[in-house]
């Protein structure tokens, strides 16, 4: 996506220019698909994607109005809520498949690793993409559920793309990764130990689309139309996995084999409130909110 | 008129790494003398007695530690207009990034002379010091003596009203030196410029100057002054053969000898 020249939601012939800050991964395939299918255009929204590397780039962009909407995982949004970041979710983003062993993210070890179950992870070195976030809280829950001691895990922060190499070279004992790295490790002989999203909550809502409190207050109509368009996109994507695999080629460089093999997430239109509350509880338990208690209701639409 | 009154200069600087601690050198103790407007005075004195220091103070490049220097009644605080100086470190005073021509021309630009006049002055000056043909060379492509002559040409082309020269002919051969001496005298006579000229060559001092000021060795004061009562029209052959010339140079030589001996007997500790 390229920045479409004029910024903000300037009205040009009744069409709203909307920028969405996203991370160029599988999770956001629906919005690309929806754009192609015209779900946004039909609601007078000209959508363009701004691909940042994470919350550090996306949240400030949304808060300042540089982007109208953004994509973020739920734990980050919960952390933001405890710090009073003025944002609000507008639509579901992506959800776990809810099937043990068949999720789009999971904890991987090398083929010959002595680690067999999540309980064995206690005391081991595990890489996650960001510390004190959705990855480590859910991994801890997996270990907890399997009867291990979550406190003894040693987490190392490492971007997903670097995890396969680190795992292979023995620099970490296990890696929490999502697609396409999950398939990559599998292809190299790696083994799945646990599906942490599934362990954390049934049908966990992993991420959501959000907007700034300001825009939500000032242009409720735009938010409403955007939500509708997203929901239509999510539904469509959920029903057409082949088209999802195809659209990935337009904004990622995942090779064809992996695209065909990888597990796709679920794209329900509803944010699973119970799962969010579970996330909040887990986070609180693990101390990632600095002692505060997030108010889940405040961020949900 | 140039007046130097009770001039004193002490250099303060740390010696090599604390070994000897603070090093203080009293370069000039108490200097008083005057140079009339349009006069040509030569300055001689033992090596290291403070001649260069004195010239820097007069040029307004160095702040005296005591006493004062005034030029035409005004006290010198910084470089005065119409002043040109030939530095003892001629090599370092030329800008290596400029051709010989540009080096000589630059001060003229600062004087805002028109282009044709500048070209003319530069050409004349380089011609006069025997460097016609090297205009486009860089200073570091020239021999030591040639570099020194470029520095002289720069001062000459500037047509200053006060000219300070610090051993300007040290690096040139005898013949060129004689030519340059005559050049300085001719310039002085033509433009009526006030000249203060440092040299180690006693013959040169007597040949050039209307007066010779002799400095003692450090701590430095004025040892003696001699008025050179030779005719104003001088030439290399006859003037130097004049018995009066010989008498004068012998006198200057003896004074300098005395200055040196005085120094040895005093033997001021230096560090």
């Amino acid at each position: 996506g390229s920045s479409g020249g004029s910024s903000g939601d300037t009205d040009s012939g009744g069409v709203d220019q909307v920028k969405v800050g996203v991370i160029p991964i599988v999770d956001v395939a629906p919005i690309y698909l929806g754009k192609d299918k015209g779900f946004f255009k039909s609601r007078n929204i000209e959508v363009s994607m701004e691909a940042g590397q994470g919350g550090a780039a996306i949240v400030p962009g949304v808060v300042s109005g540089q982007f109208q909407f953004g994509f973020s995982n739920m734990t980050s949004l919960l952390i933001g809520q405890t710090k009073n970041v003025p944002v609000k979710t507008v639509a579901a983003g992506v959800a776990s498949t809810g099937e043990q062993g068949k999720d789009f993210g999971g904890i991987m070890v090398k083929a010959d690793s002595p680690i067999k179950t999540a309980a064995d992870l206690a005391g081991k070195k595990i890489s996650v993409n960001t510390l004190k976030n959705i990855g480590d809280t859910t991994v801890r829950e997996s270990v907890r559920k399997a009867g291990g001691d979550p406190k003894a895990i040693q987490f190392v922060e490492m971007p997903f793309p670097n995890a396969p190499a680190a795992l292979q070279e023995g620099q970490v004992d296990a890696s929490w990764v999502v697609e396409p790295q999950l398939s990559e490790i599998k292809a190299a002989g790696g083994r799945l130990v646990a599906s942490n999203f599934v362990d954390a909550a049934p049908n966990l809502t992993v991420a959501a689309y959000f907007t700034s409190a300001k825009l939500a207050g000032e242009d409720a109509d735009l938010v409403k139309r955007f939500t509708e368009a997203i929901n239509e996109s999510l539904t469509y994507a959920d029903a057409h996995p082949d088209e999802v695999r195809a659209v990935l080629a337009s904004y990622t460089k995942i090779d064809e084999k992996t695209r065909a093999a990888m597990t796709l997430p679920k794209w329900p239109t509803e944010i699973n409130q119970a799962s969010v509350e579970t996330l909040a509880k887990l986070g609180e338990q693990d101390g990632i909110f600095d002692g505060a208690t997030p108010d889940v209701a405040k961020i949900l639409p | 008129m140039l007046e130097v009154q009770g001039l004193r200069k002490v250099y303060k600087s740390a010696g090599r790494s604390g070994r000897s601690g603070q090093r203080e050198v009293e370069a000039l103790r108490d200097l008083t003398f005057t140079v009339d407007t349009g006069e040509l005075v030569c300055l001689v004195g033992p090596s290291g007695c403070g001649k260069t220091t004195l010239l820097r103070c007069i040029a307004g490049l160095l702040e005296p530690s005591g006493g004062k220097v005034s030029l035409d009644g005004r006290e010198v605080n910084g470089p005065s207009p119409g002043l040109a100086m030939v530095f003892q470190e001629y090599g370092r005073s030329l800008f290596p990034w400029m051709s010989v021509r540009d080096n000589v021309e630059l001060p003229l630009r600062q004087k805002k002379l028109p282009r044709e006049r500048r070209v003319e002055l530069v050409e004349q000056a380089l011609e006069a010091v025997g460097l016609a043909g090297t205009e486009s060379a860089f200073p570091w492509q020239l021999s030591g003596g040639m570099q020194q002559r470029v520095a002289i040409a720069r001062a000459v082309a500037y047509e200053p009203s006060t000219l300070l020269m610090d051993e300007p002919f040290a690096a040139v051969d005898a013949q060129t030196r004689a030519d340059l001496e005559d050049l300085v005298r001719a310039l002085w006579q033509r433009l009526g410029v006030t000249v203060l000229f440092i040299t180690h060559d006693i013959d040169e001092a007597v040949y050039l100057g209307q007066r010779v000021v002799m400095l003692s060795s450090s701590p430095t004061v004025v040892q003696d002054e001699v008025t050179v009562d030779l005719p104003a029209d001088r030439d290399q052959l006859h003037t130097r053969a004049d018995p009066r010339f010989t008498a004068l140079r012998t006198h200057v030589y003896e004074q300098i000898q005395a200055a040196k001996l005085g120094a040895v007997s005093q033997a001021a500790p230096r560090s």
Partner: protein
Amino acid sequence: MKRLAYVLGLPVVLFAAWFVISAGSENFYAPPLSRILESFGRTWTLDRLQADVLPSLWRLIAGYVLASVIGVALGVAIGLSRGLRATVEPVLEFFRAIPPPVLVPVIMLFAGIGDGMKIIVIVFGCVWPVLLNTVEGVRAVDSVQLDTARAYGIGGPARIRQVVLPAASPQIAAGLRQALSIAIILMVISEMFAASNGLGFTIVQFQRSFAIPEMWSGIILLGLLGFALSLLFRLAEGWVLRWYHGLRSVTKGR
């Protein structure tokens, strides 16, 4: 007294301006300075300094020292030999243009994810100013000084130690000075990968967890750290290059 005024003058003015301008700030990412300062005391407790700043400092110093040694040694070799320079310069320029963040994965392949990797990242980033300045400084050594050394048979290591290095030292100092602040920057960058403690890690963590006043207080701490290190550097430079500063200030006579 006067020097203290010079050192503190402008920073005080700037901080005062920041304080006043940001006083009523509603902007989430630009909180009032008062809140930042308040969080500074809260955040950078002794425990935290020990747990996060010390490991960072150790990596920083190790990386900086290593980079200085490599930069000067390689720089002297390259500066003295035209052939060597022609051969390796393009390769060096190639690596110089690659952003350290994208190189980290490659470095991780060879150096693991421990302190070694972080130190290499720091070295990799801050060796360049030292190297370039050393090369240029060595190339610019006065020809008469070199000739003097040659004429008196001062060759080999003695020539490098007694002539080439001192002559190039003012420019090498410029490079070392540059490298110091770059080392701090790379300390932060290196701690964005596979770290679990450190000043840079903590700042990035604050940024990601929307602890914005804490993040700014971390940035202020980085600034203070840079200032303190540069002060040390200035003292060392003033000592080593006292001949140079003396030489250069001869005429200023003031």
